[in-house]
């Protein structure tokens, strides 16, 4: 039996502690230990980005980290995007601009978008395309995802100036 290690990770502000095998992937910790199934798994080669979450503010593919590597860290997932029942501008943008179809890529896509808008609040179309290049979507052809992120960028700027 492989030995276990105790890890303690903040997810969307809530501390989750558990005894885990060292080989447990962060994405499995999020989905199964913490029960937050909004973060998805789309591949086994670190290629699709369906598992994207923010670790200490930076987007990571949670299938490509072990849970133990995130010990003591702070994670944000899709479940933490809306606050007090209010949709985040990114969620609003995806809804209004039809930026999702099957919804499987959407959580990862929105987390990448969030990381982008935090470091670059006014990205142009090319910057958006490159920022989500690690997130595959098989349904939308990306155009409306880009519009959704542009919507959020505008809406967030208004929020700041207001």
């Amino acid at each position: 039996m492989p030995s276990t290690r105790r890890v303690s990770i903040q997810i969307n502000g809530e501390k989750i502690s558990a005894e885990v095998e060292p080989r447990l992937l962060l994405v499995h910790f999020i989905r199964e230990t913490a029960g937050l199934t909004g973060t998805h798994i789309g591949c086994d080669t670190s290629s699709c980005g369906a598992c994207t979450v923010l670790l200490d503010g930076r987007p990571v593919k949670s299938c490509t980290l072990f849970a133990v590597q995130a010990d003591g860290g702070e994670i944000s997932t899709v479940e933490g995007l809306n606050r007090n029942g209010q949709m985040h501008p990114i969620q609003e943008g995806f809804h209004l601009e039809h930026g999702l179809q099957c919804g499987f890529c959407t959580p990862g896509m929105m987390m990448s978008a969030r990381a982008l808008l935090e470091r670059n609040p006014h990205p142009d179309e090319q910057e958006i395309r490159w920022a989500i290049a690690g997130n595959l979507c098989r349904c939308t052809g990306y155009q409306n995802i880009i519009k959704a992120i542009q919507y959020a960028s505008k809406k967030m700027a208004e929020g700041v100036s207001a």
Partner: protein
Amino acid sequence: MIQQTSPEIGGMGHSVKRKEDRRFLLGKGNYVDDIHLPHMVYGQLVRSPFAHALIKSVNTEAAMRVPGVLAVITGEDLAKAGLAWMPTLFFDKQMVLATGKVLFQSQEVAFVVAETRFAAADAAELVEVDYEELPVLVDPHHALDADAPILRPDREEKSNHIFHWEVGDRAATAKAFEKAPVRTEVTAVFQRCHPAPLETCGCVADFNTATERLTVWLTSQAPHAHRTLFALVGGIPENNIRVISPDIGGGFGNKVPIYPGYVCAVVASLKLGRPVKWVETRSENLQSTGFARDYHMRAEIASESDGTVKALRVQTLADHGAFNAAAQPTKFPAGLFSICTGSYKFPNAFCEVDGVYTNKAPGGIAYRCSFRVTEASYLIERAMDVLAYQLNTDPAELRLKNFIRPDEFPYETPLGWSYDSGNYAAAMNKALEIAGYRELRKEQEEKRRRGELMGIGLSSFTEVVGAGPAHTFDIAGLKMFDSCEIRIHPTGKAIARLGTKSQGQGHETTFPQIIAQELGIPVSDITLEEGDTDTAPYGLGTYASRSTPVAGGATSVASRKIREKARKIAAHLLEVSEEDLEWEPGKFFVKGAPSKAKTIQEIAFAAYTNIPPGMEAGLEAVDYYDPPNLTFPFGTYICVVDIDKGTGEIKVRRFIAVDDCGNIINPMIVEGQIHGGLAEGLGIAFMQLISYDESGNVQGGNFMDYLLPTAVETPYWETDKTCTPSPHHPIGAKGVGESPNVGSPAAFVNAVVDALSHLGVRHIDMPIASWKVWQILKEKGVAA
């Protein structure tokens, strides 16, 4: 004409925002892998490393010793229960777990069940299988060679030949070729590729030993058909099976067949009396579940010197892999491939297809496609360009000259289709205008003089969707109708259930829009449910763009049945005769006295509280819709590419898509479907390929090797539309999901070939990677 409804009602033509979005945006979607049941255990498949090998022995002892392992099921175990093989959806059978030998790399050999996914994976590594390698057959062109290994000794016919299928008039076509002054031909491979929805396939099978009911949460595009097949194959009474298709993360045809992993999970749950989850990895998905295409095609066109086409002859070799697991209507061994005369008036045509076995994963399924229409459309659109080059004619002009004219519909094709409606020139002219076609050609000429490479590619495709009329269409014997049941509650709100299953198409919004259109009940007041076989009426599911043409018809007709009953109730309430009533979406009013009216909500309330004497209570209806014909959407796509002479790199500068899918339910959703299908077409044209080396090792079996377009390669899509309603569909709609995937590959390839056509290039096989272009440039001595 479709009556315009108010935005509050949100009937047809409104870009209603999707009702299903909220749960996905909150991370509360419910996909198969999100399902967690008490006492659930995990399954893991052991797969073959070899493409063709005898199985000498399978030793499960070490695997069974791994703590937490509950069972290791082998092919021999299944054989005892008569379940080692299962029927495919097309007159063949397929091994669930291999017995005797394996026939493709990654074939399913054993199924390990354990308390945790890790224990299952650890134990799977320890299952010892002793193989003896056999000669491998990879190239379909050698499948019928005298010295080719016979892959399927289980069959009566000792040959790798699966079927020969032909349609059209061979002799008349041959004669037309003899007489024609111009003949041209193109040989094109539509490569093996995989739909690769972002969610892989999987299930949770839960046999309840107390109730003796089996519930299977399944990534299924056709839950009812799957329930029936589980009943027929597994011998479980159909009333004791419940298939639930929860949220599905994209399907594109991949989730139509039944896969060995599903069967193993069901068997394991029956054996253990515990819920068993099996979810494949991406690599397993690409290497073993339904591939698409793999059509090796040759098209010849005979024409007059002025370009008027006279005859089309098509010959195709179809590689089906180890088992013919095509998911398609039983009367069509090559699907609807005979749509290959496309948008053009061919007086004569003949088409033949031969299917063969090879040591590859079984298929081929319809990848965002009505059963081989993508292959057909690609072939004819390529062939028309080759003819244009031969005649030194502009490809747009050649097409315009040969289009079926609007007044010629319904149009009977020489290969047996009756096209419902079309206006091909209108769509093409609109696309040419948006593109600025003439200026583009001028620019191309100038660039050529400067030695730069630029190409313009056209595709004016005709689609065939909405399978299909019961007299001709069935899958595994099940007629291809679809269904809708609507119940109006006393407060005027409604629930509708359908036999289809959305995988991202937005059914929870679009079908309520049809009901809103027909009954005037606001879209926001209508709940739509699909995918639970215990509650939804029987239907054949969602694929081949059939939801709107078939289930959309059912939804419309069921609504109209309700409206007829509502009319009777309104007449009773208003104390007038039915004939004195007129309808506008949302209410009946007395002719000439519009203030004397009853809203649909008032009528619904009366259906439960103030029922006319002699009438049954309630307000509901169900319709099983058998479409009178298929529908034939169409469009013109134009692609503009620039090619870098130093690297062979192709840049898609512009892509213009003018689609005609008849009357539109939700323009926003239609546009989204088109964007998505175009991106898939881009991937197919330039990136997506599953190939095999000579030992049968799969290449392209994971997302490192099987390339899909990201936002960076994907261009900005310029979309527009024309509208030619279907004359036979209740709401004049035609279906759209697959059009962009059917029509676009030819546009991309035609553009690249066009950029190189002055060098004598006539065809390049997909996927067109830059290295292929660079090699051509080097051969032609123009690489920079």
